[in-house]
C-alpha cells in the first residue's frame, strides 16, 4: 500500500517547483467547466476562497457550512494577522526567509516543496485581499503596516486591528457572495456533511444532514473539497468555536483517505486561563500581544502566595522581583519565541509552583512598559479591542494590571494526508487549509494559518483540481440514486437511529468533558508512553459508556443541536484515540508534540531525526481494528536540518 503515498513533488530547484508543476497541470476549457460540479465543504478562509475562485472560473460549485451563514466559520476569530514575504519593511525579508522560518518553526516535519509554495504565493494573497477591500492597517503615508509574530526576526505580518481573520473572511465571503449572485455557486448553510460517497474508488458526493429539517440529503459532484478545519475540540476546552469539529475529515478517513500526523496539535501560550467547572470554551488573546507585552511570574514564592490570596496586585511587585522567564531563557527571541516553546515555558514555571492565580495555572502578560514607551493612543490602536475583550471577560483592565494567560489547545497541524496537488489518497477528494496536514509540520507559526487557508483556496486548489477534472467533463452527472449513495445514507441513518435508541442518562457534553480531561492530561503539553497507553484505554472505556449511557433528546427530523453534538462526539472519541496512538508511535519531541522520554538536560525538546523524520499517515482498517501506519519520508534537499535554537 506504500505506493498510495505519492507526494507528486515536482523535481528541479525549489524555487521553480511550483512553476514547473503548474506548467504540467492539465486545463479544463471554459465551456467544459460549467459541465463540472464541485462540492466544497466548509466556508472558512480555505473553503470560501476556493468556492469563490472555482465559481469565477465557471465551475458549478455547491458550498456547505454548518452555521447559518458562511461568514460564521471559525476563521473569523483569528486575531493577529497574516504573513507575507513582501519585504515592505526593508528588513531583508524574502520568500526564502518566510519559507525557512516556517520549516524551522514547524520543527522540520513539513514538506519543503509545499512550504516554499506557501511562501511564494503569500504576496499575492495580500494583493488579492487589498483589492477586495480588506481594511488592513495603514501607516500615515497610506502604505500597508506590518507587525512581528513569534518565531521570526522580521516584520511581515499584515493585520486589521485584532480582527484580521474576520476581515479576510469577510473578503472571501464577499467574493463567494458575488459568485452566488452570479449563479456559479449554490450555498447550503445549516448543512452538515455526515459521509463521503465513493464510487469506483473516486469521491463523488456527500451525504449531508439539513440541520433545520433534520433530513438526510444526497449531493453528487465530480470532485469534493474538504475545508472543514481542525479537530482541536477533541479536548473539549479549546479556543476553537463550539461547533468546530473533525467529523467531515474523519468520515473521509473512514472511507479511505489517510490521516497524517494526528498528534501534532498546537497549544497556544496566550489564552485566558480556565476559571471554573462551568466553562465550555477558552478564549485566545492574540499572539500579536507578545510584540509589546512582556511575560513574567514572580521570582519569590511569597509574592505568588500573596497574589493568590489577593493581598497584593501584580503591579505592586517591584521590577527586580519579576522573572521575565522567556527573556531569560531565550534572549534572541525573548517574548516572541514560537508558540510551542512559549507554552512549555509557561507550564514549566507553573509546575514549579509560580502560577499566579488560585488554580496555579496562569502567568502574566504585562503592557506597563509598552504603555510607557508607546503612549495610550498607539497601544489603543494596536490592541484596543483585545484589551476590551479581556476586560469584558475578567473584569480587570489590562491598562492597569497585567493580563493573566495560560496555554490552551488552539490549532491542529495534523490532518488529512494530501499530495503536492492537495489531493488525498482518494482520487477526486481534496483537502485544504487546517483540514490537511501539509504545511506546518510539528508547530505552526503565528499568522500562518490565514496564509495557508487563502493560499490553498485562492491560488493552489483552483489550479490543481483542473488536472483531475480535465478528463471528467464527458462523464455524466453523478447519479445520486447510485447504490453507493443508498448505502452511505443507510449507514448514516443507522448511526442516528442507534444514538436515539440508547436513551441513557448522561448528556453529550458531560461525556465530551470527560474525553477532554483525558486528552489534556495524557495527550496535552507533556506526553509519555505510560500516559498515552492509558489514554487509549480510557478513551475506549469512555466510548463504551457513551454507547451505553448517552441521552440524545428530541427527534431526528427537527432542529436538534444535541444530535449534532452526539454525532461529532462519536468521531472525537476515535480522533482522540488516533491522536494518542500517533503520539505513542512518535517517540521524539518535536514542535507541539513533547514526549517526556525525549528531552535535553535543560528540559528542551529533543527531536529524533534518525528515526522520525517522516509523515505518519494512518490508514483506516475497519471498526475496532488497529489502523495501519504508512510513512512518507521527509527529504530536505535545500536546507540544512538543525536543532531549533531561539536562544542565540
Amino acid at each position, binding site marked *: 500500500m506504500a505506493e498510495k503515498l505519492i507526494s507528486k513533488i515536482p523535481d528541479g530547484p525549489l524555487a521553480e517547483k511550483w512553476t514547473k508543476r503548474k506548467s504540467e497541470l492539465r486545463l479544463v476549457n471554459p465551456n467544459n467547466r460549467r459541465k463540472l460540479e464541485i462540492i466544497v465543504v466548509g466556508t472558512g478562509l480555505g473553503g470560501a476562497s476556493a468556492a469563490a475562485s472555482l465559481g469565477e472560473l465557471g465551475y458549478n460549485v455547491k458550498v456547505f457550512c454548518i452555521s447559518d451563514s*458562511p*461568514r460564521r466559520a471559525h476563521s*473569523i476569530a483569528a486575531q493577529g494577522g497574516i504573513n507575507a514575504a513582501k519585504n515592505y519593511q526593508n528588513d531583508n525579508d524574502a520568500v526564502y526567509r518566510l519559507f525557512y522560518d516556517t520549516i524551522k518553526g514547524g520543527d522540520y516535519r513539513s514538506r519543503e516543496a509545499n512550504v516554499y509554495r506557501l511562501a511564494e504565493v503569500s504576496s499575492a494573497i495580500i494583493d488579492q485581499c487589498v483589492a477586495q477591500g480588506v*481594511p488592513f492597517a495603514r501607516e500615515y503615508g*497610506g502604505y500597508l503596516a506590518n507587525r512581528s509574530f513569534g518565531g521570526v526576526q522580521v516584520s511581515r505580518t499584515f493585520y486589521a486591528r485584532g480582527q484580521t481573520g474576520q476581515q479576510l473572511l469577510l473578503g472571501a465571503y464577499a467574493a463567494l457572495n458575488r459568485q452566488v449572485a452570479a449563479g456559479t455557486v449554490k450555498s447550503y448553510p445549516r448543512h452538515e456533511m455526515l459521509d463521503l460517497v465513493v464510487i469506483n474508488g473516486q469521491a463523488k458526493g456527500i451525504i449531508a444532514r439539513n440541520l433545520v429539517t433534520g433530513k438526510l440529503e444526497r449531493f453528487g459532484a465530480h470532485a469534493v473539497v474538504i475545508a472543514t478545519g481542525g479537530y482541536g475540540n477533541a479536548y473539549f476546552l479549546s479556543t476553537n468555536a463550539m461547533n468546530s469539529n473533525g467529523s467531515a475529515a474523519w468520515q473521509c478517513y473512514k472511507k479511505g483517505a489517510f490521516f497524517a500526523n494526528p498528534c501534532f496539535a498546537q497549544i497556544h501560550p496566550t489564552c485566558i486561563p480556565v476559571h471554573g467547572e462551568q466553562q465550555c470554551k477558552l478564549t485566545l488573546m492574540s499572539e500579536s500581544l507578545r510584540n509589546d507585552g512582556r511575560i513574567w511570574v514572580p521570582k519569590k514564592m511569597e509574592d505568588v502566595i500573596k497574589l493568590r490570596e489577593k493581598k497584593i496586585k501584580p503591579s505592586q511587585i517591584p521590577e527586580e522581583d519579576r522573572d521575565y522567564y522567556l527573556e531569560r531563557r531565550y534572549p534572541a527571541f525573548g517574548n516572541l519565541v514560537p508558540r510551542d516553546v512559549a507554552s512549555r515555558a509557561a507550564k514549566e514555571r507553573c509546575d514549579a509552583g509560580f502560577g499566579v492565580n488560585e488554580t496555579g495555572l496562569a502567568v502574566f502578560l504585562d503592557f506597563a512598559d509598552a504603555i510607557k514607551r508607546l503612549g495610550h493612543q498607539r497601544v489603543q490602536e494596536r490592541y484596543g479591542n483585545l484589551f476590551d475583550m479581556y476586560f469584558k471577560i475578567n473584569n480587570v483592565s489590562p491598562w492597569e494590571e497585567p493580563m493573566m494567560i495560560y496555554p490552551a489547545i488552539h490549532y491542529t497541524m495534523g490532518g488529512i494526508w494530501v499530495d503536492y496537488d492537495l489531493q488525498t489518497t482518494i482520487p477526486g477528494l481534496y483537502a485544504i487549509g487546517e483540514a490537511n496536514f501539509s504545511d506546518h509540520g510539528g508547530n505552526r507559526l503565528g499568522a500562518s494559518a490565514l496564509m495557508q487557508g487563502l493560499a490553498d483556496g485562492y491560488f493552489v486548489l483552483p489550479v490543481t483540481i483542473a488536472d483531475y477534472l480535465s478528463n471528467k467533463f464527458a462523464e455524466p452527472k453523478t447519479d445520486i440514486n447510485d447504490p453507493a449513495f443508498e448505502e452511505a445514507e443507510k449507514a448514516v441513518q443507522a448511526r442516528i437511529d442507534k444514538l436515539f435508541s440508547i436513551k441513557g442518562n448522561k448528556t453529550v457534553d458531560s461525556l465530551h468533558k470527560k474525553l477532554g480531561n483525558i486528552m489534556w492530561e495524557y495527550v496535552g503539553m507533556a506526553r509519555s508512553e505510560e500516559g498515552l497507553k492509558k489514554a487509549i484505554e480510557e478513551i475506549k472505556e469512555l466510548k463504551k459508556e457513551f454507547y451505553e449511557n448517552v*441521552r440524545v433528546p428530541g427527534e431526528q427530523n427537527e*432542529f436538534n443541536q444535541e444530535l449534532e453534538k452526539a454525532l461529532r462526539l462519536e468521531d472525537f472519541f476515535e480522533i482522540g484515540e488516533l491522536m494518542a496512538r500517533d503520539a505513542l508511535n512518535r517517540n521524539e519531541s518535536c514542535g507541539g508534540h513533547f514526549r517526556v522520554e525525549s528531552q535535553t538536560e535543560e528540559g528542551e525538546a529533543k527531536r529524533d531525526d534518525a528515526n522520525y523524520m517522516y509523515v505518519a499517515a494512518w490508514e483506516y482498517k475497519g471498526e475496532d481494528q488497529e489502523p495501519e501506519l504508512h510513512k512518507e519520508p521527509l527529504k530536505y534537499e535545500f536546507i540544512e536540518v538543525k536543532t531549533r535554537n531561539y536562544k542565540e
Partner: protein
Amino acid sequence: MDFNLKIWRQKNAREKGHFETYHISGIEEDASFLEMLDILNEQLIREGCDPVAVERGCQSSGPVSFDHDCREGICGACSLYIDGRAHGPDDHVTTCQLFMRHFKDGATITVEPFRSPAFPIIKDLVVDRTAFDKILQAGGFISVRTGAAQDGNTILIPHDNAEKSMDAAACVGCGACVATCKNGSAMLFVAARVSSLALLPQGRPEAARRAKNMVAKMEELGFGGCTNTRACEMECPKGISIDHIARLNREFLKAKFRD
C-alpha cells in the same frame, strides 16, 4: 447565584411559541450567559423533561435551542433578546460576552429570540438570518477576480480612512440592529458594508450601484425603513455609528441622481 428564566419556546416555524419558566441555581458569577444556558440544558436533558411544563400539560420541550459558536464575540452567531435588550444588559457586547455578574442574584430573566418579519424563527431562540446573506449577495463586494490584483501598496489609503473603514467593517452580522429597531430596519447592517467599501479607493467604482442594490434588496426582503432613532447604534455590539447610515444615504442619492 440563582435565577428564574422565562424562555421563549417554539417547536418550529409553523407552531405557536410560548414562554416557559425554569429555575436554575449554583451559577458562578464569572459564568457567561451562554454557559448558564448550557447548564440549564444539561439540567433539562437530565430531567428528561421539564416538570413545570409537564404540570401545565406541556410535553417535554427538551433543551433550549440557541445559536452560538465562537463564544468570543466575533462570529455573530449568538442572538438573544434578554430583558428587552438585544444581547442583554451590557453595552457593546454580544450575548456570549455577557456575564452573570451583570444580573442580580435571584432575578427573573426574560429570554426571547431576535424578532423581525425578515428573521423567521426556526426553533426556540434560533432565527433564520439568511436575509443578511441575500443583501450582501446583492452588492456587498468589490468585483475583483482571484489573481487580478495589483500590488497592495500601489493603492494608497490614508491611515484615518483605513481606520474608519475598519470601524464599519467590524460588523459581525448578528442582527441586533434589526431586532432593536422599531421599524425592523437593517439600515445599520447595510450601511456598515456600503460605508466600509465606499471609504476605500478600491470600493469607489461600484459605490453608488452597491448602495442602490443593497437597499433595494433590503426593502424587498421585508426589512423596514430608517427613521433615525439611533436605537441600532446604541445596541450594536461593535458600536457601529449611524454616521455610516449618512454615508450610505449619500451614496444612495448619488445613484438615484444618476438614474
